[in-house]
């Protein structure tokens, strides 16, 4: 039986974690993710979970401890933001290459500098090639739902990879919104007990984790790791289907909003997708054929499915909440455009950098994007494909 509630994104994640009751949670605080371990620590203190909560001295240590715990056979996770994620960098690759299905609750925040504490995706975008599964949320409900589904995906025997559950710093993490919670028992049954196949604390099968891999093996090891990623899309969809039966809320690799007959489309990640939906509804009332493709699963990147969903559009704007400093756009732009190219798409595509360091995105901004797309289609020319939204010139 679902329970109506109003919670901030951080509270929602903390409650999902209480319901999951993981084995080990090492953490070091950083704005705006601090509240997650803070709420969780109170659950530990109140005896509502059995989790071993470890206050560590840095994010490098929190990720290392989560890795060690996962290798030992525990269900582990940590939470962080921005520079905290950057400080975990080398450990992220270790977690993925050791095929450890731990989780990271990431609250997206700009990387310094200049120093800024507000939302953009530069932290997780930088970690996109670390071998982690990355999932993003539009709102608090999605952050909660993704967290509940996370371990089922990460621990699946065909996957066994770490998973990053991302939400927008402050915009959702500190905003109270309506949402529906599942009952504790429902989450417990859905997530299930973790039964690792190989783990360090198994006396029946001693083992070594993270051995040196000389040149003769390294490429084969990386190819072996890629095999896990190849199964992620299938598993994400299977888990989503089961989750829909439980919650009534449906998830895919991405959300296509009013996209079926759209001529102009926006592709984006995160909270601004909600704002874009309001712009779309307004424009649809005026007869404009506009739609949205909101990425949920960013790593691995479901390129074929995305290209297929965009096959009818005349013009598309790919929105990056992170710079790539390639001189031609951000990471999502590169991924979507490559997908369109491989699918021999004829769509005119532009790539916007937007919302950096918490810069607000309004319904009017998104209406402006659609107006630009309409003009691009009329001109038959995308013009400059690398653009900044709302920049003061």
């Amino acid at each position, binding site marked *: 039986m679902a329970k109506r509630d*109003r919670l901030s994104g951080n509270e929602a994640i903390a409650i999902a974690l209480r319901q999951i009751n993981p084995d080990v949670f090492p953490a070091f605080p950083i*704005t705006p993710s601090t509240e997650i371990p803070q709420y969780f620590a109170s659950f530990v203190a109140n005896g509502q979970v059995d989790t071993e909560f470890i206050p560590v001295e840095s994010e490098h240590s929190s990720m290392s401890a989560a890795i060690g715990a996962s290798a030992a056979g525990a269900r582990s996770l940590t939470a962080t933001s921005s520079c905290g994620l950057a400080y975990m960098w080398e450990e992220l690759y270790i977690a993925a290459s050791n095929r450890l299905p731990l989780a990271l609750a990431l609250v997206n925040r700009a990387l310094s500098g200049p120093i800024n*504490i*507000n939302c953009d995706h530069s932290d997780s975008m930088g970690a996109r090639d670390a071998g982690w599964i990355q999932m993003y949320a*539009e*709102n608090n409900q999605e952050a909660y739902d993704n967290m509940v589904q996370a371990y089922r995906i990460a621990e699946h025997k065909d996957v066994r990879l770490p998973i990053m559950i991302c939400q*927008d710093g*402050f*915009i*959702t993490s*500190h*905003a*109270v*919104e*309506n949402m529906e919670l599942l009952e504790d028992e429902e989450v417990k049954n859905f997530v299930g007990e973790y039964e690792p196949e190989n783990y360090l604390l198994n006396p029946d099968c001693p083992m070594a984790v993270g051995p040196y891999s000389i040149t003769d093996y390294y490429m084969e090891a990386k190819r072996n790791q890629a095999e896990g990623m190849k199964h992620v899309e299938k598993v994400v969809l299977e888990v989503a289907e089961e989750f829909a039966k439980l919650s009534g809320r449906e998830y895919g690799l991405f959300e296509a909003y009013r996209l079926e007959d759209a001529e102009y489309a926006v592709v984006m990640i995160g*909270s*601004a997708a*909600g*704002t874009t*939906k*309001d712009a779309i509804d307004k424009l649809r009332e005026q007869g404009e054929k506009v739609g949205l493709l909101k990425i949920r699963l960013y790593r691995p990147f479901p390129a074929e499915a995305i290209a297929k969903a965009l096959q009818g559009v005349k013009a598309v704007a790919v929105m990056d909440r992170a710079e790539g400093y390639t001189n031609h756009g951000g990471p999502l732009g590169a991924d979507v455009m490559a997908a369109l190219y491989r699918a021999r798409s004829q769509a005119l595509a532009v790539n916007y950098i937007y919302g950096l360091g*918490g810069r*607000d*995105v*309004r*319904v009017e901004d998104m209406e402006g994007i659609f107006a630009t797309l309409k003009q691009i289609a009329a001109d038959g020319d995308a013009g400059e494909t690398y653009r900044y939204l709302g920049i003061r010139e």
Partner: protein
Amino acid sequence: MSNLTEIRWHGRGGQGAKTAALLLADVAFQTGKYVQGFPEYGPERMGAPITAYNRISDTQIRVHSNIYDPQYVVVVDESLLEAVDVTSGLKKDGAILVNTSRPKEEIIPHLKGYEGKVCTIDAHKVSMATMGRYFPNTPLLAAIVKVADIMDEETFLREMRASFSHKFASKPEVIDGNMAALKMALKEVR
């Protein structure tokens, strides 16, 4: 979207504008509404001007931007009347609620020609009289509920008692003071 109410709070870091916005979201939620309550963070220090927002609607709220054209503005600290453009985008058919001990006539000249309704509450007086300490957000919460007609007073007081009983479970002695502050503020708002 016609039933959407948008409220903007102006306060200073440490005065509880964010808390007040979250409390308002809380109480509106209890009456079955869709709500949003969120802060806009600037420099993280006591005394810096901060903004918080509320959206209250009968339908799901998807927009995640700040609020530029609110129906209502609450000014938690009247020194902000000079420092911040508090009436920016404020709708004429809405209202501004200012926390001040001064009469309305002295406030209006500072509102840059705002033509809508101007309301005041002396949250300091209410807070000191009922709680013995200065907590402006409890009286301001009651005042904005009345000014923006978010719900009837009886429902509001009932929901707030339940909310305080939960929030202050470990120190029930403060519940009566807070309730008295709400009741007095409902009468004192002008």
